[in-house]
């Protein structure tokens, strides 16, 4: 039997069971530690005479309750830090709450049928009671206060104006109105509904599109003063413009029509044409659908997220970009950005262009980047990481995949690690560096004549004068290699 194959089998099994957790450094360390323990258990069982598959099943059973681990990972911050104290969180947008509420409802509704039925009963009862009491319509106001302010009873002061900026808390409206097609939840005081499909973009600075079922396509009109065009199934969309100049597009303007979108019974694609100018924030999310952006987008902040669709983007110049896909692929070519963050569950990701800071996380997808990068930080569980072009700083970590970087300039820092994969770095000759390496069962191969314990399993080796550059490469069962490439100069 092949020991490495079995070790990898445990890594994959543990990775799969933790798929629900965000991919962080803490998660990868957890996978490494626990899969190694299970593998040790398997070896003991097999040595004790258990049949290979039976030993595998028994060892895996020793993992226990995965929910405990997920809860632990969940308690950590996004970068795997310990949780921050609760009072350090500051939020200031009403829409954050609304979207938060929306997300919770979507999650609850989609997760279990029981919860869905219960929610339906509660909503129906509430609807009947409200309809009974207010046959011509109803509008209530919910004021959320922070810092334990006095609680406000909405029924006592129905005409109370929304809190001004000097007051803490938010106000938004929920209600039932036949003219609006049933239940609604929103902040109509701060936004107005748009029914035209062509309107002026003059007052707009940002766009926020959130769909459940449907593709989103953004097209750009070369004229910076052009109007906004919305096409696709516009009759199923709720289009609004807020006082802050945000164009928001949602599927289903009421809870009752959202019901069909949430269950996959309705779908609506959105095609939006925006004038080509620098947008403040462009935020698009769809649960089931692709996101495609035309060439040449300019935005300060670009946030694209899809559950199962692909994301495609070319020639965008942005300060801050976050692209996230659950099972789809992400492709971002000819980027010109300050910060790019890519995240996928099982999809592959590729990124090309000029990026000062690239952060990429994927569970089982591959990451391939090519271009000019200031800093790359890439983490994957079972995928490969491949970087080419000019890379000044790179950190790449994989559990079972290969990690490689081929840079036309000598990087300032380099940190490559894998557990069962190979790590390879290629860069031009000429300047010195210090290499800290560790390969438990693999070999270190270097095109640069190194001084130090090269034949050993681990240690510190120096090329030329050491150069003040520290490179770190480590693998457990893979090989390490350093190669030489021609300099760009």
């Amino acid at each position: 039997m092949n020991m490495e194959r079995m070790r990898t089998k445990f890594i994959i099994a543990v990775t799969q069971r933790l798929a629900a957790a965000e991919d962080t450094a803490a998660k990868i360390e957890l996978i490494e530690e626990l899969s190694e323990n299970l593998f040790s258990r398997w070896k003991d069982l097999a040595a004790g005479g258990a049949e290979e598959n039976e030993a595998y099943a028994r060892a895996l059973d020793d993992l226990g309750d995965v929910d405990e681990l997920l809860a632990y990972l969940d308690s950590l911050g996004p970068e795997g830090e310990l949780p921050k104290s609760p009072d350090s969180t500051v939020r200031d947008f009403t829409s954050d709450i609304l979207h938060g509420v929306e997300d919770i409802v979507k999650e609850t509704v989609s997760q279990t049928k029981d919860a869905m039925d219960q929610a339906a009963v509660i909503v129906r009862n509430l609807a009947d009671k409200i309809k009974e009491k207010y046959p011509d319509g109803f509008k209530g106001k919910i004021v959320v206060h922070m810092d334990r302010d006095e609680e406000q009873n909405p029924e006592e002061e129905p005409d109370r104006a929304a809190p001004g900026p000097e007051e803490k808390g938010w106000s938004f409206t929920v209600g039932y109105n036949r003219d609006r097609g049933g239940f609604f939840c929103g902040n109509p005081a701060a936004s107005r509904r748009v029914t035209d499909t062509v309107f002026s973009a003059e007052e707009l600075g940002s766009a926020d599109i959130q769909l459940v079922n449907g593709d989103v396509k953004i097209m750009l009109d070369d004229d910076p003063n052009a109007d906004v065009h919305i096409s696709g199934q516009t009759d199923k969309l709720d289009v609004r413009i807020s006082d802050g100049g945000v164009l928001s597009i949602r599927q289903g303007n009421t809870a009752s029509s959202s019901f069909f979108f949430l269950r996959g019974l309705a779908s609506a694609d959105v095609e939006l044409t925006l004038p080509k100018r620098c947008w403040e924030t462009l935020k698009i999310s769809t649960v089931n659908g692709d996101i495609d952006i035309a060439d040449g987008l300019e935005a300060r902040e670009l946030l694209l997220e899809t559950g199962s669709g692909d994301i495609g983007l070319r020639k965008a110049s942005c300060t801050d970009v976050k692209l996230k896909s659950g099972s789809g692929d992400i492709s971002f070519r000819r980027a010109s950005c300050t910060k790019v963050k890519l995240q996928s569950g099982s999809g592959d990701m590729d990124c090309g262009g000029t990026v000062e800071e690239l952060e990429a996380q994927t569970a089982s997808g591959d990451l391939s980047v090519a271009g000019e990068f200031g800093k790359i930080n890439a983490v994957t569980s079972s995928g490969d990481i491949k970087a080419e072009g000019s890379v000044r700083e790179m950190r790449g970590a994989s559990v079972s995949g290969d990690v490689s970087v081929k840079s036309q300039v000598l990087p300032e820092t380099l940190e490559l690690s894998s557990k069962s994969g190979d790590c390879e770095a290629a860069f031009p000759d000429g300047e010195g560096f210090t290499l800290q390496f560790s390969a438990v069962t693999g070999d270190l191969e270097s095109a640069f004549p190194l001084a130090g314990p090269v034949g050993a399993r681990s240690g510190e080796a120096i090329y030329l004068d050491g150069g003040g550059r520290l490179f770190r490469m480590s693998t457990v069962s893979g090989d390490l290699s350093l190669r030489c490439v021609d300099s760009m100069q």
Partner: protein
Amino acid sequence: MSISADTLRGHTDTILLTQLLHGDHYGYEINKRIQTQTGGKYGFKEATLYTAFKRLENAGLITSYWGEDGPGARRRYYSITDEGRRRQAENCQEWLETKALLDALIASEEE
């Protein structure tokens, strides 16, 4: 058996701290020692063990480090801190007192 399992679960931290009193160990090794000491009657699931270690580490009772441990393995070793030793001694004392109380109470009921 379920009563004793519940009782034991309440002492997970003490059990793990005790295992580390005389040297650093990695997770699976500790679990194996516990199983040997209890004649195979008790052991932790990996998930429970891992979250317990993280809890103890967060509380400053243990520290951990990666050890290169051939062939083919990198393992996380756990090490007890002075604070951890103090806590272990306190917990042991507490248990002895509880045990004495229980012995007295249960013995008197049986009479």
